[in-house]
């Protein structure tokens, strides 16, 4: 049975093996209603397999979960979800508007509703001019746009986007970002599987890092990015007692001649560090804080050996 107030996605110990190969080892996560959730990991980390399990395209070897309150694979839950698959291969002998009509029919939308909704969506994804064109003549970016429109037909409560911007130019990417923002404002949950970190950085509320089919970390993006501050200090003389004294602000201090590298958890510690160094008789020439980008965090958390 579906539960209208449960999380958008809730999976517990989801595992999928193909023979000897473990695609997803142990996936446990929860995506709340209305949040934009980034699902990050290197190639081959099992992201697409995980997405397919959520939608019932692939049967888990073990573990279970719920999608919009219904068991994974329940076709009723899919009526309230939208999905843009990774490779966006569609029936290319249909025109754009026939394609959307077909999928509206599969969502069991009454014709008078779909005939109103389809032009709106074509407008939203910038394909109004191409409504009567066959998908066969579409570029990769146009296919991705029509695929996105198809995922939004039913005004879903959850949209699962598997690499939604991989074929898009910068204008198309901005469009996707705008659509995701709009969905969030309307309270739609978005599960964004992407390796384009800049997109995730801009759009997501929370992110999960996965590697070898396991969740390494789930964090709110804001606290993740604001959480760590890398600071580079140029000063002299940096005697061992002075460096040791910095441990009260940072557990990660490295001294290299006149250069000090340390990471802080809060920006407010910077003046105190400066004051401490001056009080110790140290001359400070530079004190440069740097925010870690999501890419830095990705590499820090996932490592550089994960890509396959």
């Amino acid at each position: 049975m579906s539960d209208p107030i449960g999380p958008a996605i809730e999976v517990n110990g989801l595992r999928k093996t193909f023979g000897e190969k473990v695609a997803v080892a142990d996936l446990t996560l929860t995506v709340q209603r209305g949040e934009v959730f980034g699902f990050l990991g290197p190639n081959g980390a099992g992201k697409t397999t995980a997405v397919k399990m959520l939608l019932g395209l692939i049967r888990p070897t073990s573990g279970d979960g719920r999608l919009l309150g219904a068991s994974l694979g329940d076709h009723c839950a899919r009526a309230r979800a939208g999905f843009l698959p990774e490779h966006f291969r569609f029936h290319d002998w249909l025109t754009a508007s026939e394609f959307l009509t077909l999928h509206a029919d599969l969502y069991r939308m009454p014709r008078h509703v779909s005939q109103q909704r389809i032009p709106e969506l074509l407008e939203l994804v910038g394909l109004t001019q191409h409504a009567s064109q066959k998908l066969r003549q579409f570029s990769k970016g146009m296919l991705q746009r029509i695929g996105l429109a198809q995922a939004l037909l039913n005004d879903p409560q959850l949209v699962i986007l598997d690499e939604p911007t991989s074929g898009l130019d910068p204008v198309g990417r901005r469009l996707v970002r705008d659509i995701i923002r709009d969905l969030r404002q309307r309270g739609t949950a978005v599960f964004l599987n992407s390796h384009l970190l800049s997109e995730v950085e801009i759009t997501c509320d929370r992110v999960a890092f996965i590697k070898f089919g396991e969740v390494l970390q789930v964090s709110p993006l804001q606290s993740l990015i604001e959480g760590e501050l890398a600071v580079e200090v140029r000063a002299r003389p940096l005697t061992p007692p002075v460096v040791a004294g910095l441990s009260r602000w940072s557990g990660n201090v490295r001294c290299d001649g006149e250069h000090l590298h340390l990471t802080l958890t809060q920006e407010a510690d910077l003046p105190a560090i400066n004051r401490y160094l001056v009080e110790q008789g140290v001359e400070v020439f530079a004190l440069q804080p740097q925010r870690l980008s999501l890419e830095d965090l990705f590499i820090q958390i996932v490592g550089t050996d994960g890509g396959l």
Partner: protein
Amino acid sequence: MSILVIARLTFREASRRWILWVALLLGVLFLAVYGIGINEIHKDISLSGPGMLQRSEMYNFMFMAGMYVVNFLVVIMAVLTSVDTLSGEIASGTIHTLVSKPLRRWEIVMGKWLGFAAMLLLYLLFMGGGVLALVYLISGYVAPNILPGLVMMGFNILLLLCVSFLGGASLSTLANGVLVFGLYGVAFIGGWIEQFGALMGNQTAINIGVVCSLVLPSEALWKRAAYEMQSPLVAALGVSPFTSTSVPSPLMVGYAALYGLLTLLFAIRHFSRRDL
């Protein structure tokens, strides 16, 4: 209803990808050649003036020759058009947008099956009806038991569709094509061995034919159709290549029905359980 949406999609695909139109065009070509041919023979028969009984036998022979080719063409159409429908969509990934919609997988299988069944049965009616009409218009001859004959031929198409769907749910397109045509070949040669066995009174040959029909009862259904529509005299003599000497029993027809039903159920089961 999702089944009807998928059935309509299947029909539309055949039309958009020119499969339907090429088949119809070649069907018209076949009927034109057939019509011209039997018209020429009819003129000869009228001139040489054989007796009514002999004429009727010759017209039945021509009608059965036409239906034999129609059966073959529709069988080929049934396999070629459907062999790719599940495996092709799985391989290309177009299936992902379908199965992520709120429909159950059996509805996809049944929708596609119904779409193909409707299209192929219409094609059979067009081709078989064309042969029947041409023979009637040219000679005034109507073969016996047309309806049961056409029903058996239609049944044969549905059976092959079921087999093609089972292969498509589990194998690649090429492997499925090889499987269905391979099985059809076994049934086909088995049918001929049985025919010769019956003519020569060789029980072993008949048994080989029956076993082949159990492997795929496709040829048995054609033989039943031919038995229904052949002239009583040819049936008694058992000399025509297009007619049936060893007649498949109603039990074999029942077996074919069960075979088709189980094959389709296995196709649904397999497609519903597989990873996509």
